[in-house]
């Protein structure tokens, strides 16, 4: 499968692949909170693991901080391969 530049979402990112966050497509308040916590547009991010049954994702952001992120939110974070 070719790594096209078409943005995928963080939710669909395979484990261990580092991708760049293109945009966070959600309401202003949530977007601001996510950026404040450390998931920022322009930074890279990596999915370390997923909880079973559609649970949250364990993400590591470029700055080194790690978060649990709900799958619903991860589906609103557009990424492209860096």
């Amino acid at each position, binding site marked *: 499968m070719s790594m096209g530049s078409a943005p995928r979402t963080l939710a669909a990112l395979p484990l261990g692949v580092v991708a760049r966050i293109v945009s966070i497509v959600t309401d202003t308040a949530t977007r601001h*909170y996510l950026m404040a916590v450390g998931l920022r547009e322009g930074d890279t991010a990596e999915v370390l693991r997923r*909880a079973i049954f559609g*649970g949250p994702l*364990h993400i590591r952001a470029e700055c080194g901080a790690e978060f649990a992120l709900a799958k619903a*939110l991860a589906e609103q974070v557009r990424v492209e391969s860096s």
Partner: protein
Amino acid sequence: MKKKDHTTVAVLFVGRPNSGKTSLYNALTGADAHVGNFPGITVDVLEADVLAKDGTVYRVTDLPGIYTLCTSEADAGTDEGIARSFLERVKASGERYLVIQIADATKLELALSLTQEILDAGHPLLFAASQRDELDRENKVLDITILARGIGAPAIALSARDGQVKQRLLDAIANALGTFITPASQKAEAEPQQTRDPIVARELVAKAVRHQDQSAKPQGPTFTTKLDAWLLHPIIGPVLFLGLMSLVFAAVFLVSDPMTALIDRCIQLAGDAAERQVGKGLAISFFVQGVLGGAGTVLAFLPQIVILSFAMELLDASGYLARGAFLLDRGLRGLGLSGRAFLPLLMGHACAIPAIAATRIIRDPKERLTTMLVVPLMTCSARIPTYALLLSTFFAHKGPLFRALIFVGLYFVGILLGLIASLVLRKTVTRGKSLPLVLEMPAYRAPQLSVLRKHVVRTGSRFIKDVGTTIVIASSVLWLLLYVPMPGAAHREGPAVERSVAAVVGRSLEPLTKPAGFDWRINVGLIGSFGARELMVGTLGVIMGVEGADQDSAPLADKLRSAKKPDGTPAYSSRTALALLAFFVIACQCLSTVAAIRRETRSLKWPAFVLVYTYALAYVAAVLVYQVGGLLGFA
């Protein structure tokens, strides 16, 4: 020069969670920090006075950890909302103040957007990069001057483990306060940039933080990554998690039981000594059984509260709690909650009061409310004496393993009922979908014992003060009800207690409670434990004419077993015991919890709701269990 004695400056500690703020605050304030009494704020905000060299008093406040100052109306009860309104209030008051932002030196970029927000809001700032020892370990060096110039505010680098850190902080605060008096000279030096922009922030950090060793290899997996491979493993993770939780609760029983027995004994000796000194009589009886008995009950619970609060603070400070939330989020989401509800629900197994306060970590207001309404269903320490009494009285013949299983089963029933209640509430009274989970997973670290110790001491003293007052009052009122004879009942025969106000009320409730197998004596016990369920055993003791039932329940157990109804048949059976257990599992027999819910929700509606729904459900459950028990052929 103007004398600066008794000048007070407000110093506010601000920063992300896990930034090392608590350790630095601890290092600066030592043992003096107490929970401040701030209007409209129900969370623990620590405050302490620290004396500077020139006699100025710094009133140092530790605000909750926050990620941003930009909040909306709906966030008023969250940590962010609380911190923001606190800062605005201090600014509006006109007094001199300084905001110290604590940031993890190894993750400076993350902190800088908050820095910009603080400066944009017009607050005077001192930037403190903490955990400098970690930075040293990573072989990096921080040029604090570059950072200070880039931010546009004074900056300092610190480590809480440095013996000199308190003095360094005090000096930095004094310098920063001096700087703000001469803004002109400060502006000349600064070339502040808009660090809210992540790119700008990253560039600034890249300039300020450099590797010592230019040929440094990229770091291998950290300790946290390696440990997470086990603790968050799809199979091993949950198993270890269950194991850890079981360990915590086992510790409560194994360690706190003997300590509780010891405290009980001491209280009993004190009561005996008082009686010997002053002789028996009504006033002494009131003091010994009402007040001292109540106080003894509170103290007897202290070991459990201390151990559980220590365990939970350890789990939180070590970083493991976030992993628990990660594992449980999906399951809790199905019930209308989220991973964040895990901590309050867990704490409810020690005592519901701190658990209710802990719900503020849940950002969604409806989810927070639901969790508060459901926490009373968790099996708290105060239910244990009643469980123990009933199990040993009516199931002694079944052996210890059976009783242990029932005990564990009762814990699970509480959790199960809480989850079902949450599901129902989220579809009806507190309808709505939860905010999706965003939770930082901090690096694992060994918590500082002094910080842990102080937290436990605070929780313990808060428990004694809040719950203790309620129990002593409830116990004293109960004593009155049990010893004051009901006017008009003097003609009845039998022990004096059967003519008391409590007994008369108990009898009048019998038609209502008969379907559940409760007679007037149990009714009196339930009346007595309305304020605090810890009082059930003692009340039953008094009504059955057994002295000191709390300390040694064997005589009470015998009395309960041999009690007879007027027609000569046994008054109580395992059927009754099961029905009473069902009642105890559900009913919110704790006025302190109700008061805590009132404080957190700032209304009377929700505490009333909790009382009504838990008592109604408890009654229905008791009746069901008793009737079904009869159908199944129980005695």
